[in-house]
């Protein structure tokens, strides 16, 4: 009941501040940018390239699965930054402004407060992401080749885990600090740090969450779910759950002054 109250209030807020408009739009642009530019590159170069007459442009023929992966890699870079940016104030902002004083003097359970906000933000992000990836899948199938529905749904679902992890990391820092900017910086820093760790110890950390996309690439190429993808998913989900409970704990410990 209380959980749903906060969840609905967040949803109303996303309508009022037009998040439900701009987040899907930005995500769609992000997802279709690469398929479109890749397909039209020869024409674009021809029109604006100013190449000498008679120059022959030969670009490698991209596989449809690679193009879809390009969409995902946009999410891994710019997408992550957007997600952190729209999540970094979700609790920290309310604490900084002081609204939290009026909310938490009511008998609100801290776990409800955090998890409902987490779920609301995930709804916004995952719905936008699904629409965006569907658009990308549509363009890929008409401009390149068709990708099987099953493979697409698997890609969509497994990659969603990475986005959920990003949101959860940001929520965790939200419960720790009350300056949204700092929350954002630390979240991005953590994700970059994870990438670095993964790059250095990749041979040992086969199930590290950052490997999700490379296993998804395998999945798209072979059409079968690699065993390591299950392992990585398991690790990612465990990390998400652990961070969420850690958030409840730190928020409880924290004084809200």
């Amino acid at each position: 009941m209380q959980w749903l109250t906060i969840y609905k209030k967040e949803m109303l807020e996303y309508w009022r501040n037009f998040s439900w408009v701009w987040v899907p739009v930005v995500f769609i642009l992000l997802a279709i940018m690469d398929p479109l530019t890749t397909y039209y590159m020869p024409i674009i170069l021809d029109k604006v390239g100013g190449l000498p007459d008679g120059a022959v442009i030969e670009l490698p023929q991209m596989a449809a699965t690679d193009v879809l992966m390009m969409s995902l890699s946009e999410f891994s870079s710019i997408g992550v930054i957007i997600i952190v940016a729209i999540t970094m104030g979700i609790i920290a902002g309310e604490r900084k402004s002081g609204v939290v004083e009026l909310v938490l003097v009511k008998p609100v359970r801290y776990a409800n407060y955090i998890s409902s906000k987490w779920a609301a933000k995930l709804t916004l992000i995952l719905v936008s992401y699904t629409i965006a990836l569907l658009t990308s899948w549509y363009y890929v199938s008409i401009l390149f080749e068709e990708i099987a529905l099953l493979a697409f749904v698997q890609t969509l679902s497994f990659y969603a885990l990475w986005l959920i992890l990003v949101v959860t990391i940001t929520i965790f820092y939200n419960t720790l600090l009350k300056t949204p900017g700092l929350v954002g910086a630390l979240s991005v820093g953590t994700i970059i740090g994870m990438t670095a760790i993964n790059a250095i110890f990749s041979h040992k950390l086969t199930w590290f969450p950052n490997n999700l996309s490379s296993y998804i690439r395998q999945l798209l190429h072979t059409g079968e779910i690699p065993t390591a993808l299950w392992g990585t998913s398991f690790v990612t989900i465990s990390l998400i759950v652990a961070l969420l409970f850690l958030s409840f704990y730190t928020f409880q410990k924290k004084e809200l002054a």
Partner: protein
Amino acid sequence: MFNIHNLTKKFDGTAVVKDVSFSLSPGNCVALLGANGAGKTTTLRMLSGLLKPTSGKIEFEGMRPGADIREHIGYLPQYPIFHNWMTGKEFLVYVGQLANLTKANAKEQADYYLERVGILEAKNQRIGKYSGGMKQRLGIAQAMIHRPQMIMLDEPVSSLDPIGRREVLTLMEELKQQTTILFSTHILSDAEEISDSLLLMHQGEIVESGSLVELRDKHQSAKINIAFKGLNEEFIPNLEAISDVSDVIIDKNELICIVKDLEKARQSILAQANTENWPLTKFEVSQTSLEELFMKVVQN
């Protein structure tokens, strides 16, 4: 109903609230009076559960052990911040539901309190457009929405203009019938106006407490204000020599004689003035006020 035992709060080792103990009985309106920085806000924030006391105990009678104290209290911070994108009614329904009211009940209560605090006509306006006084009244409504047994208001009138101040004080006067009120203020006249008893706080400690009547009886003494043509100071020794005058204080344009027995003192002063032909320009009998008590406590 509400018992506070040895409440202490330290920030980085410095005690902001020291060993505060008091109890509140139902239906009381109590003012927590003190200068800025006396520890009033910190005390209220501990009672509302926003801050954890370093030591001490807060007991609420009739509460199951381990139950959430926040169900029984309402709190209005000194500078209440709302979601400005919500309307007044939406906000009240929201916090009402957070306090475990059903949606229908929350709506009903929201309308009732919007009317009660006098902002019913603005209920569908965004809070961002509310004036300071309207926000303060919405703040009181949100504190009352779940009909708590006690509400705590932190400086409810300090930031308001005279009209808003009057309105909020009248509102508090009405709410007294319904719930126990604990409010902080640094203005004595506000405290005297609506509270039944006072807790005087200074540097984190409760230095004096009691009902208004008790405090007046305890601290009020008679005084005689005298002014002379010419220098007042010349007459201090003469006044001090009179046995019923216990103290002579120099005020701006007059001398304040604190007296033990008003009747005797008046007779002796007037008799002496008559025989020595003092150039009196003012002779006034009055009482020391709580204001003077307040100032005495705060300045020591």
